[in-house]
């Protein structure tokens, strides 16, 4: 098992190099010379040359590539073009509001989805199953933008139940600010989650070992909660853990609409001001997080699935 984890760990190296390479190609090769944009029309050639030197654009390409790789470990992403702030500082500041919104919402939506899918799997083929299935498909077919606009307009603006926008640091001060976006987040997650969980659970329900469990005299509820769920957990773990990196950015639109100063908001501001280093930093950060979490999934696998240990 240790061997297995070491092997997975070693495999991360080429993946990390690959990710760095894609980001390097996009931001260092394709994007072109940013100095003109940064300094405006009246910049002199000397100013531009100085800035190039300062941004490290005169370095050999290989060095520039290794700078990208290095930043994946040091989290030293340089300064923002727009605000001149240290990007790593910006990220640390932005992480708090983002997590305050997404972490509770993510946990609630995952648990809720699991419960709903177990219920509909139990009543598979019956009315409630068909209804939930249709609601899920209909739910994911509406643009996330429409949900956010409508909920913000109706519940916050019209009814005044929630804060329309803004954020305050410190618990429980932020609760009224994140309550509505969190509810929307949960609603947005339910559709795809329930669809996936239900499919996975139903795949297991038709396996031979379930027939064996029935032949033992076990009740359907116990078969579902013990035998089926334990097996279905294996794909579910991957699905859930792998979502975490996009959590930072998943709330991108929500943070934007509700003016929450989180990472999503930072990203969108950077987008509007063509602040390349910030976008690049976010791309590296979320990819590194993805890679780490895929390792976490692999480790969780060894607990969820006894068959993995052999490999």
């Amino acid at each position: 098992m240790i061997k297995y984890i070491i092997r997975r760990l070693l495999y991360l190296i080429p993946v990390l190099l690959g990710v760095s390479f894609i980001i390097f190609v996009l931001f260092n090769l394709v994007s072109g010379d940013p100095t003109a944009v940064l300094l405006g029309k009246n910049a002199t050639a000397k100013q531009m040359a100085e800035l190039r030197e300062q941004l490290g654009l005169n370095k050999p390409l290989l060095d520039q590539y290794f700078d990208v790789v290095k930043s994946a470990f040091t989290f030293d992403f340089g300064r923002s073009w727009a605000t001149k702030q240290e990007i790593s500082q910006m990220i640390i500041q932005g992480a708090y509001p983002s997590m305050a919104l997404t972490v509770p919402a993510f946990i609630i939506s995952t648990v809720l989805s699991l419960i709903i899918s177990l219920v509909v799997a139990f009543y598979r083929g019956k009315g409630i199953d068909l209804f939930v299935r249709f609601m899920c498909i209909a739910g994911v077919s509406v643009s996330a933008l429409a949900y956010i606009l409508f909920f913000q307009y109706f519940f916050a603006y019209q009814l005044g139940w929630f804060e329309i926008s803004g954020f305050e640091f410190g618990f429980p001060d932020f609760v009224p600010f994140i309550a509505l976006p969190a509810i929307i987040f949960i609603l947005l997650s339910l559709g795809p989650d329930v669809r996936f969980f239900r499919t996975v659970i139903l795949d297991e329900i038709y396996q031979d070992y379930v027939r064996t469990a029935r032949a033992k005299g076990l009740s359907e509820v116990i078969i579902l909660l013990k035998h089926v769920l334990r097996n279905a957990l294996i794909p579910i773990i991957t699905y859930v853990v792998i979502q975490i990196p996009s959590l930072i950015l998943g709330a991108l639109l929500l943070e934007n609409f509700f003016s929450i100063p989180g990472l999503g908001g930072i990203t969108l501001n950077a987008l509007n001001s063509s602040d390349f280093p910030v976008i690049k930093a976010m791309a590296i950060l979320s990819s590194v997080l993805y890679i780490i979490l895929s390792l976490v999934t692999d480790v969780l696998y060894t607990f969820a699935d006894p068959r993995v240990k052999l490999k």
Partner: protein
Amino acid sequence: MKENSLWKDAFKRLIKDKMALASLIVVIVYSLIAILASMGLIASDWAKEVGASNLPPSAEHWFGTDIFGRDVLAKVLHGTQIAMSVGLFTALIAIPIGVILGAVAGYFGGWVDDFITWLYTTFSSIPNIMLLISITMILGKGIFAVYIALGATSWVTLCRLIRGEVMKHKEREYVQAAGAIGGGHFRKLFLHILPNVTHIVIINTSLQFQFAIKSEVILSYLGLGVQGEPSWGTMIDDAKLELARGVWWQLAGATMAMFLVVLAFNLLGDALRDSLDPKLKGK
């Protein structure tokens, strides 16, 4: 005498399912609108001022007018063209890359497989939305960048699915039989295995089409998509400010238009899975 290929059987099952048939019709209607709009036959005058600003829906302007007095219906129809074209071009980029890389990786194995697996693991390690934002931002805002960005992200799923399926089929005895009668790699892979994994491409494309449409709306909303033309995303962006003034029809028009086609693709994808999946086809 009846001859029932698996395709014919699947099609029969599909159109028997009323929901799937309705979805298919919706998709066809949207495609027609997109084709007609791109030929300039409908909604070509979306930019024309046809009435007062912000008129609510009426018999004359079914979806009302926007702030510049333009017909919202015409904008929705033009947006259909944009949305469908994004779905189409994404598929045109993703399918060849995904199918060829996936098939080659699954069939040949060895270092070729290692390399391709590394390639798609790398691509999938950058969260989708981040890759979309980065590519569209760097390539410059516009619909072309949206095609490339969505194409670059959506081949990954297809490639992984095709690789797995080809690996499974490679071991089947019918492929070994093709080798035993003297067939080479080309025959085994392209004439025998690929026709047996095509259903994956169809199901996946149907689901990816709706993902592309949804992504285009968000990217356009963020200002990364089409420039100077209406798309569902930019319409929703406009509506953001109008809603407080009670102007809801632009939001409703764009949302409904998108809802219908995305719902249709979702239902169709599910129905295709049911009718094409050989697992359900007895033995």
